[in-house]
């Protein structure tokens, strides 16, 4: 049901009313924008010397690029590990042996139920007692892996379960072992079907790297404080960083949409193609999907 089903095409009076509502809404928006603008103005947030640093290459070289590298390296390593974790535990949970499927289920459900920030803190503080050098990078990355990997395990499992029964039955009928059926028939199709949902979860993972800020991991958010220390421009710096995040996520979102359109067109899967925001996928991944976190 599209939105327009909720109301009739407006007649002359409806059109006039809509114009009035639009004008009122615009006025309210302008009013809020004006308040924000004038308050920021009175505290000098629009002064040129708070913004000109962003036009100089040094600011980027010294602050934003290192922050971006911190965020993206945690994202890249976390994403690879999370996908690997997801595969292992999806297959584990689908295993016919209870000795494998039950522990896999316990692990997946446990890590999905715990706030990721607590996981990261735990790993951070656990390194020293284990005789390891304390690394905030690995605390962030392993936290990202355990939570997002568990969510991805459920996404992949949902993808396998959504395949028609005939797929695995045909595999068994031609004499493949359960492992071969999984590896050569089910997983390739499930991944193709679920790729958009997997990429959507990577958007969540990218946003969650920001939790590193709380552990003082040197990522984008932490550079806001460093920029503020140098140029006294907290609000401009925070706005620029927010824009960078939105840009990064938009790129990932576009990739997800492209992949989804391509999978729908090209096929190569017997399963229903998961949508980046499919409510069924949300239900399937329970606690994880919606925003997961930060």
């Amino acid at each position, binding site marked *: 049901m599209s939105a327009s089903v909720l109301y009739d095409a407006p007649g002359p009076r409806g059109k006039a009313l809509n114009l009035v509502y639009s004008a009122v809404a615009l006025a309210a928006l302008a009013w809020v924008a004006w308040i924000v603008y004038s308050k920021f103005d009175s505290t000098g947030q629009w002064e040129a010397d708070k913004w000109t640093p962003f036009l100089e290459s040094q600011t980027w070289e010294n602050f934003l690029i290192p922050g971006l590298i911190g965020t993206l390296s945690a994202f890249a390593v976390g994403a690879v590990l999370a996908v690997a974790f997801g595969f292992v535990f999806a297959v584990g949970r689908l295993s016919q042996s209870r000795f494998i499927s039950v522990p896999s289920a316990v692990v997946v459900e446990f890590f999905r139920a715990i706030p990721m920030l607590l996981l990261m803190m735990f790993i951070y503080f656990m390194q020293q007692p284990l005789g390891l050098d304390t690394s905030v990078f690995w605390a962030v990355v392993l936290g990202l892996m355990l939570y997002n990997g568990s969510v991805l395990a459920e996404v992949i499992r949902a993808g396998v379960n959504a395949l028609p029964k005939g797929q695995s039955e045909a595999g068994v009928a031609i004499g493949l072992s359960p492992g071969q059926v999984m590896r050569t028939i089910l997983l390739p199709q499930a991944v193709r079907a679920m790729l958009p949902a997997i990429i959507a979860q990577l958007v969540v993972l990218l946003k969650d790297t920001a939790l590193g*800020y709380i552990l003082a991991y040197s990522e984008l958010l932490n550079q806001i404080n460093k920029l503020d220390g140098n140029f006294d421009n907290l609000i401009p710096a925070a706005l620029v960083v927010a824009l960078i995040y939105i840009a990064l996520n938009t790129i990932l979102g576009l990739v997800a949409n492209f992949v989804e359109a391509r999978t729908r067109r090209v096929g190569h899967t017997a399963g229903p193609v998961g949508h980046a925001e499919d409510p069924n996928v949300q239900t399937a991944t329970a606690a994880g999907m919606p925003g997961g976190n930060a």
Partner: protein
Amino acid sequence: MDLISESGSAILTSFGLTLRLAFFSGIFSLLLGVVLATFRVSPVPVLRWVGAAVVYTLRNTPLTLVMFFTLFGLSYQLGVSFDKELLYRNNFWLAVLALSVYTSTFVCEVLRSGINTVPLGQAEAARAIGLTFTQNLRLIVLPQALRSVINPLASVLIAMTKNTTVAVTIGVTTATFVNEASGQMKALMERNSDQILLIFIIFAAGFMILTLPIGFIAGWASKRFAVIR
């Protein structure tokens, strides 16, 4: 078990604070989510754009950054204050604001997907008997949509409950300066480096106790209130 006797009551207090954060954020995010969803399906183009822009911006911004903005932007720069004298109270409501606004975008998208599950004929019949857009939404479509998205909504609320830990960004405490759960766990781990695993298990169990009932209630409610067609 020294840990329990020494810090047991502080841990309970911190979970009480986490529960209050989750409770108020849950209520406000549901209300705000309904408003946003109404904007996104309304006949007024400007409201649709506003709704879409708000959802897009917030969904692609880390919650940590949203918290950051409420403290440094809203409170320090714009002078928004919920309590001029008691800092802890101000920070509590700032955290509730950040969590509610952030979560409401997810509530909005879940509701929108719920509206899509309501059969076409329902809205058409409502229009045929002359109901306006707001009547149509309020009396016919939203009640059915809400009842079909109880489970996904519960997922959003569970995620929100876990997200209360991010409130440590702006330092939310009780009147006696006990942190919410994540700040409390960090402080305990710093002080008792020999009991880190035990501390983690206690806090992990605490969050399970908070979130599991949401899932159970939702499971029961989604059956009890299912729309029979």
